[in-house]
């Protein structure tokens, strides 16, 4: 890994550490670090593990609410959902590994996020994937999509956790740098909550699961925290290989340990491997740890201490166990046919002492590894070009051909039917999926209760590029509305902040603005950020991706509606209503401008928090009332596409009246569509009055055509059959 041919490069640099960081380490240690120590600091102080460029700004997020049990900083955020039940949620990125090796990169992303959640004592009950690639006309992008989806399916299906949704988008800026984010939700009873603490002196550290090998060495530092170029695929050995079967056994073994109250604390082994699993729990508990590396069960002989400490071999957990319970822990591990070894003992003081073949190879402060990474206050500044893109609005001399526009939107892989993807994922296991993938939010029931958990994840790189603050806020409102349309109250947010190179002031400005936008919207809605992840250096050959935050929203419906609205709930004779502001005509960042004219410019509207709260409130009540069998937010593609999606899903035609064609394509996060039986329209209108929200009758379901008309020449008309075929085949026809 640190090859001899590069002897001219200092070792710390080969390990991804800068000269300044190395100087800081010398100051902390007051001596030269040993090889093993340098290895540990290089991974723990990497951007990926230490958040050194972002930490200063992440404090802005509102993280407190009465229902928050565990906020950011632990392995996963945990909220109280009542009656002794808790929900744990976490999101992570696996962008760079997935570009280098799509199948294993995506698969190990799934494995890692699962461990984050079952580390907290929760049974993982659902996975969501947010994936973004360059356009599908490029063969390498098709290879990446295919590999990533197979990797997610191969791991998620086999490990036995359903994949309940996610996002799929294509944009030129992701061509050299795909985004692969993954979110996991778990549920647990309050008494099963476990934290990542090493406990008190005398506690034993027991390493469970897979044997440690030479895979994934330096994944966090040299791969996840560096920019990309043409040589990047040579970093393939830094990608880990996953084994869902080991993980499945590890999940069951750990859940049994929690159930029998056999552990003091647990830490998963992901990025930075053993270095992290020793230092973070000890740092949190303010204790030290004596470690014997010879006890670690290994996959291959002659591994050096540095390799053992940096390895990111998958499917491993560190349990901290009272000495009297060690035998029982090992017996349970063996019952589930996984390996276990006692590798260390907790000591007074804060020193992490690591022995190998009888010698001390590292002796450092545990907390200095996890907490003393240099923090950067990176320069940021409003980019000179932002005014130019705001004024770069598009205008058409003639109205567009509306039929053609609708057809192109239906055929766009970012907007079209994502079934090709999610039908490769088991989304039914556990018999809890009440609203399956393909809807605005998925809903799962908690068996034996009246509760339903609703989850939506949303991202929109174009809007965030045009205005990161407004774009960030819009995502929160959109995901909250999605959750509300299943009858659930939005509660907790996790975010995955995918950005370019933080050493550029433009990128840092985008980052800070996004954090501000997300924070403001969360405050307006009373939702709390309970966790997140930052992925910087998403640039290839100097080209940064669009700032692409992903917001994951968790909502609770208690009781869950008997029949939550679905996309396919519309039927012949039902009215199509639009709830929310009537006049919304800003096309900046819209799918319409992108798909029809390859135009990305202008400035998206600032979302209105008062309207957002009202619309979300009404959506919750409407969804719970049963008055609207179908609901759909008006997001990408505007009312034109979203109304067509209702018609296609429900296999029924639709005639819609509009006034201005721009209104068909505008994207406003405070609006939704509802299909309502004629006799229930008055009740829905009364609800709108109660929430002070505009409501308008847009059209009528029926017939075998999708027709949009303003009574004049500007008309769109497609047969339902053609629209359906185009929408369903957009992705398969490009992939097969």
């Amino acid at each position, binding site marked *: 890994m640190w090859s001899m041919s590069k002897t001219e490069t200092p070792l710390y640099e080969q390990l991804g550490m800068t000269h300044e960081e190395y100087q800081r380490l010398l100051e902390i240690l007051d001596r030269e670090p040993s090889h093993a120590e340098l290895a540990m600091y290089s991974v723990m102080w990497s951007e990926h593990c230490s958040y050194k460029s972002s930490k200063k700004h992440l404090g802005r997020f509102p993280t407190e609410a009465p229902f928050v049990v565990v906020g950011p900083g632990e392995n996963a955020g945990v909220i109280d959902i009542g009656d002794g039940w808790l929900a744990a949620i976490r999101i992570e990125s696996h962008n760079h590994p997935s570009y280098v090796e799509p199948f294993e990169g995506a698969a190990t992303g799934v494995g890692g996020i699962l461990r984050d959640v079952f580390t907290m004592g929760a049974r993982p009950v659902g996975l969501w994937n947010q994936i973004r690639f360059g356009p599908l006309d490029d063969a390498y992008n098709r290879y990446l999509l295919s590999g990533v989806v197979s990797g997610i399916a191969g791991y998620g299906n086999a490990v036995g956790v359903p994949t309940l949704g996610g996002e799929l988008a294509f944009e030129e800026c992701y061509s050299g740098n795909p985004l692969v984010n993954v979110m996991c939700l778990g549920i647990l009873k309050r008494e099963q909550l476990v934290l990542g603490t090493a406990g008190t002196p005398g506690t034993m550290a027991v390493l469970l699961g897979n044997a440690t090998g030479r895979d994934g060495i330096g994944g966090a530092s040299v791969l996840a925290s560096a920019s990309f170029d043409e040589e990047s695929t040579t970093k393939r050995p830094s990608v880990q290989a996953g084994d869902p079967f080991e993980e499945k056994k590890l999940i069951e073994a750990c859940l049994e340990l929690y159930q029998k109250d056999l552990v003091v604390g647990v830490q998963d082994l992901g990025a930075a491997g053993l270095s992290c699993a020793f230092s973070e729990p000890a740092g949190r508990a303010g204790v030290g740890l004596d470690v014997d590396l010879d006890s670690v069960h290994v996959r291959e002989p002659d591994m050096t201490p540095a390799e053992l400490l940096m390895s990111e071999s998958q499917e491993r957990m560190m349990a901290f166990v009272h000495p009297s319970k060690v035998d029982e822990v090992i017996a349970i591990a063996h019952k589930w046919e996984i390996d276990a070894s006692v590798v260390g003992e907790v000591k007074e003081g804060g020193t992490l002492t690591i022995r190998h073949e009888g010698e001390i190879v590292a002796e450092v402060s545990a907390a200095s590894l996890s907490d003393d990474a240099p923090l950067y206050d990176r320069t940021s500044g409003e980019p000179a070009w932002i005014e130019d893109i705001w004024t770069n609005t598009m205008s058409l001399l003639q109205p567009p051909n509306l039929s053609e526009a609708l057809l192109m939107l239906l055929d766009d892989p970012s907007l079209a039917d994502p079934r090709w993807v999610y039908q490769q994922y088991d989304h039914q296991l556990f*018999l809890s999926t009440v609203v399956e993938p393909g809807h605005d939010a998925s809903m799962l029931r908690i068996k034996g209760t009246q509760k339903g958990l609703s989850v939506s994840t949303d991202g929109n790189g174009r809007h965030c590029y045009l205005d990161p603050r407004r774009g960030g806020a819009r995502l929160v409102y959109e995901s909250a509305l999605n959750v509300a349309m299943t009858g659930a109250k939005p509660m907790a947010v996790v975010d995955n902040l995918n950005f370019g190179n933080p050493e550029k002031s433009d990128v840092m400005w985008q980052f800070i603005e996004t954090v501000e936008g997300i924070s403001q919207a969360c405050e307006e809605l009373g939702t709390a950020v309970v966790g997140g992840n930052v992925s910087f250096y998403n640039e290839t050959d100097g080209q940064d991706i669009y700032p692409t935050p992903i917001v994951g929203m968790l909502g609770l419906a208690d009781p869950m509606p008997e029949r939550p609205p679905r996309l396919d709930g519309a039927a012949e004779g039902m009215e199509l209503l639009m709830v929310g502001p009537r006049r919304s005509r800003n096309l900046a960042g819209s799918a319409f401008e992108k798909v029809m004219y390859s135009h990305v410019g202008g400035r998206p509207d600032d979302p209105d928090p008062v309207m957002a709260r009202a619309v979300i409130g009404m959506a919750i009540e409407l969804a719970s009332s049963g008055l609207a069998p179908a609901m759909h937010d008006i997001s990408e593609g505007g009312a034109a596409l979203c109304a067509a999606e209702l018609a296609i899903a429900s296999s029924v035609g639709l005639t819609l009246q509009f006034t201005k064609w721009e209104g068909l394509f505008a994207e406003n996060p405070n609006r939704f569509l509802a299909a309502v039986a004629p006799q229930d329209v008055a009740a829905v209108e009364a609800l709108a009055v109660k929430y002070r929200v505009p409501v308008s009758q847009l059209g009528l379901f029926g017939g075998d055509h999708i027709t949009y008309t303003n009574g004049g020449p500007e008309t769109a008309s497609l047969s339902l059959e053609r629209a359906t075929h185009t929408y369903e085949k957009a992705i398969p026809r490009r992939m097969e």
Partner: protein
Amino acid sequence: MKTAVVVFPGTNCEHDVMWALKVLGAEAELVWHRETDLSEFDGVILPGGFAHGDHLRTGAIARFSPVMDEVIRMAKEGKPVLGICNGFQILCEAGLLPGALLQNRDLKFICKPIHVAITATDSILTRAAEVGQILSIPLNSYEGNYQAQEDVSDRVVAVYCDENGLVDESTNPNGSQGNAAAVSNATGNVAGIMPHPERAIEAILGSSDGQILLKSFQESLGVVHV
């Protein structure tokens, strides 16, 4: 009457099968794959999942799990033995059912609701149903492509079709021979089905059509099939 639901390392549908049996009011118990005595049970279900990680070949290692001697004994005694998805693959590997399950025709995992039509009612899986009855049941597999060298047409108890009962290549999701979705042995007491009846037990999850199949199994307990 009590059913054993076998758990191999890597099995993942065991809790779903237990839930479904509970909804139907049936008595069942989870049994670890190292168990060597199933004498207290009247029937056995091998649920879906990835037993032993599907390593080597689906079901190839599971057939050697210690519990399988007892499963084979019960099958020979005429007691009801049902394999669902991965359980079906294990029963084929163990030689209790004819044929084998290959990778899907399109080399992709398929998770979606499909339709099956009942073609025979002389099995523990279909005895409560009627020939021609069409059921909506979720499919969830990568190796679901049923193939047999011998003629098994009289052993197929359910076939893939559409909602109107059309059985042809267009309604065959995975390339199975003759659209076979479920088969039984000659005496009808051992059956395997690729779609998941336990996932179609409650209308709130989309369909309750799977009830008739698990009810068939339940009604078969205590009846000796020779």
